[in-house]
């Protein structure tokens, strides 16, 4: 039974059959061709049997294993490797269909390889999940055929495996390194002038253009005969709360990933950096009511707690209630903190409704309101309109983009810091803001 189940035919089989039918039809008119066709028919039969024997001689001639991490990082390319090993005595060709998790909706993935006797080959590919949660990989389907290529034998290899897709820890590590080594400039991040003047002395270091020249240590400069500067320590143990709006407006996807997941990824990145900088990181999520509050802390396990917390976030995308958020912050966050509020406003009027609560929060804390530029609208603005209707559409798109700027100005007018960012650059812009605010000593 298993033999029949694993028995498949190639296109070549059907091509040969078609050719034979054609030859016999010609043979109806020219008897000599019919004789040739008959010979070819038997030859093809012999080859079919031979090919089948070659493929089915051994019981388990093909091994495959899928190697991947236990956790995937959301929104990033995660690499997967399939190792293929065989024991056929001749060169074989393999078509591999890996059973991918249903979330990817990929139906046409196929790898074709040729393996010489004793050869081991790897298939490397990567997947970009855009939703957190459990992803189920199935088995690996491999179809093997020889150079004759008449029969294909299917092998069902490997083991089904579930993978959890977590908020982007790959981004987290990447930005952690950059932030610690002060290399944020390299990935196109604006250099921050340190304006803050904390008096806690840390070290003397070389003067670099852009440093505050009031802090030059003249005695040290004289000794080294080059300019030296006093560096002061950043304030430590400040609270940084990532507040994530899980409401209706955060559902909109960009490049397949919802704004909520962008916000979750950025929260993880910023929490990690805050912890590394010696601050306390916390987390608040809300929609029509406040769903979870993870108090800020700088304990060792805090980052893991935040990661698990972010992983578990679920939402019904209800209308967000900022009054509930205000009440909750008022009660539970007593120390002045940096509040990074990830939300999205589309129009000034929708902001006006929430402005009261935002101002109230800003009184007690340092509020940074983070919302998103609509890159799709931006694309529309940057294309030529070819008809009057196109001009109208473009005008509306420009109005929407302009509205975002108005929202930003409205917030700034009330002393609330803002970040208006394309979804892709969210993490970078948030880090920069955090570093800026820290160095300015505003928290």
């Amino acid at each position, binding site marked *: 039974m298993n033999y029949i189940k694993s028995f498949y035919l190639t296109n070549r089989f059907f091509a040969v059959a078609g050719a034979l039918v054609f030859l016999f039809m010609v043979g109806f008119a020219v008897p000599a061709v019919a004789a040739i066709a008959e010979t070819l028919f038997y030859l093809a039969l012999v080859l079919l049997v031979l090919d089948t024997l070659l493929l089915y001689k051994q019981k388990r001639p093909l091994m495959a294993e899928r190697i991947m991490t236990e956790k995937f990082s959301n929104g990033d390319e995660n690499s997967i490797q399939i190792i293929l090993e065989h024991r056929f005595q001749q060169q074989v060709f393999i078509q591999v269909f890996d059973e991918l998790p249903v979330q990817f909706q990929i139906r046409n993935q196929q790898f074709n390889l040729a393996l010489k006797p004793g050869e081991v080959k790897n298939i490397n590919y990567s997947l970009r999940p855009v939703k957190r949660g459990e992803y189920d990989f199935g088995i690996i389907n491999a179809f093997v055929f020889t150079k004759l290529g008449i029969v294909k034998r299917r092998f069902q290899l490997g083991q089904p495996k579930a993978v959890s897709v977590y908020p982007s820890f790959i981004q987290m590590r990447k930005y952690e390194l950059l932030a610690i080594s002060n290399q944020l400039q390299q990935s196109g991040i604006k250099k921050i002038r340190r304006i803050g003047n904390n008096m806690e002395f840390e070290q003397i270091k070389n003067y670099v253009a852009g440093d505050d020249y009031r802090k030059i240590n003249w005695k040290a400069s004289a000794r080294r005969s080059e300019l030296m500067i006093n560096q002061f320590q950043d304030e430590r143990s400040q609270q940084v709360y990532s507040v994530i709006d899980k409401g209706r407006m955060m559902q909109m996807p960009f490049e397949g990933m919802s704004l909520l997941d962008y916000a979750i990824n950025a929260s993880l990145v910023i929490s990690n950096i805050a912890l590394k900088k010696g601050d306390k990181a916390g987390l608040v999520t809300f929609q029509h009511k406040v769903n979870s509050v993870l108090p800020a802390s700088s304990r060792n396990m805090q980052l893991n707690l935040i990661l698990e917390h972010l992983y578990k976030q679920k939402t019904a995308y209800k209308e967000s209630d900022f009054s509930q958020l205000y009440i909750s912050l008022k009660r539970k966050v007593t120390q002045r903190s940096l509040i990074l509020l990830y939300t999205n406003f589309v129009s000034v009027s929708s902001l006006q409704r929430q402005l009261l609560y935002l101002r109230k929060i800003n009184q007690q804390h340092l509020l940074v309101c983070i919302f998103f530029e609509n890159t799709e609208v931006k694309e529309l603005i940057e294309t030529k309109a070819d008809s009057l209707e196109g001009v109208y*559409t473009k005008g509306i798109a420009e109005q929407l983009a302009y509205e975002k700027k108005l929202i930003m100005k409205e917030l700034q007018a009330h002393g609330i810091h803002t970040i208006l960012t394309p979804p892709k650059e969210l993490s970078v812009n948030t880090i920069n803001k955090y570093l800026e605010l820290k160095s300015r000593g505003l928290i």
Partner: protein
Amino acid sequence: MKDKKYLIFFIAIITIYVVYEMQKPKSEDWTVTYHYRDRIPFGTFATHDLLKDLFDQGDVPSSFKTIYELVEQEEVDDNFLAIAGNLIFDDNDFNSLLEHVEKGNTVFLAAQDFSTRFEDSLRFEAYLEQRLNPSDFTQIANELAEETKTRVRFALPNGNEETFVFPTLTTAAYFSKVESDSITEMAWREDGKPVLLKYNSGQGNLYLSAMPLAFTNYFVLHEETSAFASSMLSLLPEDEPLIHIEYYQMGKLESRSEIRALLSYPALRWAIFILLATVFIFILFESKRRQRIIAVIPPVKNATLEFVNTLGQLYHQQKNHKNLAQKRILFWKDYVRSHYMLRTDKLDEAFKLELTRKSGVEKAKVFELVELVERIEANDMIEEGELLMMEKLMNEFYGIV
């Protein structure tokens, strides 16, 4: 879950229908076949049983070949019996038949309709008063049940006469204008029309009956009429072998489709068989799964563009060009302010020069754009052309290619 409900619903409906069909009294199958395997009223299963008793040889074999094939090709020398609705003989058949009879054999043919070959050569005419509609079973059943019957007078070879009563249905056909000397009438309807003829040729006899239905199960098993069939069959010599020729009502048992013609050529036979086998194999093997089913999850759509397009269409229907131009000017001014750090409250000469210098766009273009903006702001109404002009100039200003 919803699908399952429908499935259950459909299964229930089908079950009810099947049960209903099974409950319905089965209607009799009145198809006229004259076939020896059929136990339906108008088959000849019972007749074959009767033949077994009448003839020394016991079982009477059925043949599905023409008389020509039997006589000329296989050189059979037996007596023949044929019962059919109509007997269509071609020249070969007919000549073989006469030849066969002349040689001293007896042939018994029963049909409602004889082909003109018979009528021309043997010089008689056959009439059919009422043709049986083979698909109208209710009509047949009704006619059989009706009281109108016909008497049939039969002159037995031993000189006696016997009378049988048949439903009119059976006696719809009769012979007329029997002009040949070699033909003897042997049975008559009550109006005197002959229904059984004997044609004498050489040493043999050919019997022609216009009442083939009398040989079917229905009448053979019927008390009143069974004797008629056996009497007629007794005309065939009981000690000579007999063959029941079923070709004329059944045709050859093999299929007679066009594909047979193709199959008779070996090359085409190969082609067709390979083609059919390949199609079969294709269906069998290509329908197998290559990987597991991937359920469809509709992706969440970013509806912004749709939203913008709809709004654009709505504004376009209003055709308030001025309003839209103002929106665009607002955006443009913001762009100028944030990119070139210029005040936009006064669009004077100095502004235009400064903007030209800072933006690096051609002076004439910048001036044209700013003047257009001023003009639009000053006017209450603007033309479609101005809106399109602004689009063109702004594209150049923004550097949109």
